[in-house]
């Protein structure tokens, strides 16, 4: 009780100028500056996660690149020259920024798909390929096939679905299909030629954003190639590369000057990372300016408050209050205001991230729902630095 009453008196003497109009602009600028810094970290972090496909296993910027050879006119009839030799595959394995290499195993046998019900049936030829499971952006548990299995699981490219819905279906007057419809369809795959044809039940189990193909398990393609395959050498026509940094110059050089091709769209998306990095840097710069302004006004405010309370401070020291006690007293009060401001910035960041995560999930982009440890580390560091600065200002002023 006694200390509380004493503190009320000290507040009257030392903080009586604390309720003026200078404090709020300082705190708002500080809060905004720190929020912008945290937002920069959030954007940088989220972009990194999105590009790496951390939460949905789908990289848009792509740490995965599908590669094929450029087909010059003279090679049109020489299909073997468009395939990757073992030496070429091995060369990719040691290429800078390449983490893993997967080969597309093509079906060397004819494939037909047959949809049928009691009234109608529809069949068409298609192609299937297989890639190692680790390269597929769809974690399907039952992604394997051995002879004797009832159903062949299939993954189709989302691009194909879009092509069908927005190209083929309107043109042919057939109904458009949703992902749900396709997942519910049962159909048959017919492989082989003539009397050796075999029928297998099949089902689409998922869709891929990463790989533009119709994928079946490697076991199915291997079986088909062994039993129904032709005499071609079993060399891959496409590779899938997992790269550590798709924006790296060496990766670009591979496609700009070499004999290989990848989706230009993917490479363009890679530029998103660079662009985002610049945008984040710009935002961080702006944030630093805001913080500098906020810190300047805040320190000016404290400076002015202490100067205005200078006579009171001197008289209190004459009564026996120690400068250390008065510094601590002022630091505690302004420190609390500072920490509350920092917490407000943190709270704004949480709200921003939660809302952004909710908003962009509609666009099939998934980021963490709450700020990462990097954001809290940034907030902690800024708070600590500002508290140290505050302490220094107060101690200097009170002991002057």
């Amino acid at each position, binding site marked *: 009780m*006694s*200390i509380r*009453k*004493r503190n009320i*008196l*000290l507040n*009257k*003497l030392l903080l*009586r100028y604390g309720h003026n109009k200078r404090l709020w602009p300082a705190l708002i600028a500080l809060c905004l500056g720190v929020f912008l810094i945290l937002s920069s970290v959030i954007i940088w972090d989220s972009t990194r996660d999105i590009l790496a496909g951390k939460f949905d296993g789908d990289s848009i910027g792509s740490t995965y690149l599908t590669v094929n050879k450029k087909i010059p006119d003279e090679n049109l009839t020489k299909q073997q020259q468009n395939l990757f030799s073992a030496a070429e595959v091995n060369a990719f394995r040691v290429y800078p920024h390449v983490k893993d290499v997967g080969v597309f195993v093509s079906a060397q046998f004819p494939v037909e798909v047959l949809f049928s019900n009691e009234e109608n049936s529809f069949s068409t030829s298609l192609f299937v390929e297989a890639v190692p499971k680790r390269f597929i952006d769809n974690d399907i548990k039952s992604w394997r096939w051995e002879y004797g299995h009832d159903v062949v699981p299939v993954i189709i490219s989302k691009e194909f679905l879009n092509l069908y819905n927005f190209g083929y279906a309107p043109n042919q007057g057939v109904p458009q299909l949703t992902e749900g419809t396709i997942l519910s369809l049962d159909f048959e795959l017919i492989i082989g030629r003539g009397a050796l044809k075999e029928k297998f039940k099949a089902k689409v189990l998922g869709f891929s954003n990463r790989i533009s193909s119709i994928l079946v398990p490697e076991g199915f393609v291997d079986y088909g190639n062994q039993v129904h395959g032709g005499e071609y050498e079993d060399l891959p026509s496409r590779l899938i590369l997992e790269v550590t940094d798709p924006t790296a110059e060496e990766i670009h050089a591979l496609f700009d000057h070499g004999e290989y091709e990848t989706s230009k769209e993917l490479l363009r998306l890679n530029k998103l990372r660079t662009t985002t990095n610049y945008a984040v840097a710009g935002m961080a710069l702006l944030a630093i300016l805001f913080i500098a302004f906020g810190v300047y006004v805040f320190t000016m405010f404290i400076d002015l408050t202490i100067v205005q309370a200078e006579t*009171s401070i001197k*008289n*209190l*020291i*004459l*009564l*026996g*209050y*120690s*400068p*250390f*006690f008065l510094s601590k007293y002022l630091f505690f009060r302004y420190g609390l205001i500072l920490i509350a401001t920092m917490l407000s910035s943190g709270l704004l960041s949480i709200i921003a991230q939660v809302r952004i995560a909710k908003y962009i999930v509609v666009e099939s982009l998934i980021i963490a729902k709450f700020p990462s440890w990097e954001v809290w580390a940034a907030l902690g560091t800024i708070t600590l630095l500002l508290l140290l600065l505050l302490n220094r200002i107060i101690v200097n002023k009170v*002991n002057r």
Partner: protein
Amino acid sequence: MRLSLDSIVPSALKDRPDVSNSYLWQRDLVFNQGEVILVQGPSGTGKSVFLRMLFGIDKEYEGDIHWSAFKMRDVSSSQLSLLRASSLSAVFQDLKLFSELTVWENIEVNRRMTNTVSEYDAEKWLDRVGLKKAQDVVVNNLSLGEQQRVAIVRALVQPFEWLLLDEPFCYLDEFNRSKAVALIKEVVQLTRAGIIVTSNTDNDEFVYDKKILL
């Protein structure tokens, strides 16, 4: 607590010819706790400066001042605060009150620092100097005489071994002066503290053990 003065003289006064006539400057003196000392001299002879030196405010002087083991020139700010909070109390000529606080708040700022004097005693002393009814009045609205009485009571509501009074009754009339003197004598008698009073003139307000002419 013993006060020892070793040939002290303020830097501003050391070249004045009349310094050698002083019974204070450049002399070795010792005052023991409980003594009542009058430092008397006309304006400009350094009475206030002397109290400011004793209180650790002025450090521009030659010689040394010792409050027992504390050498004033070398004390740290925390030691000085401790000394002021526990052993030295003062009434300054310019009073050094908190003008924006009320009479009672001025008393409380000092009393609550150590809580060695009860709220009851503080109120009673305020009543003794005729300020009970004015205790909620902001100090700025008081006359100088009233402010001086507030400063006196404020100096008494903390523990002290020495009370330094710089012309403490200069704004008081005879009636209020006698009330203030009586209160100081009573409190000092209880605490067995010493008093150093500065004044322009000789007086018999206290029973002085020593009178020092500047």
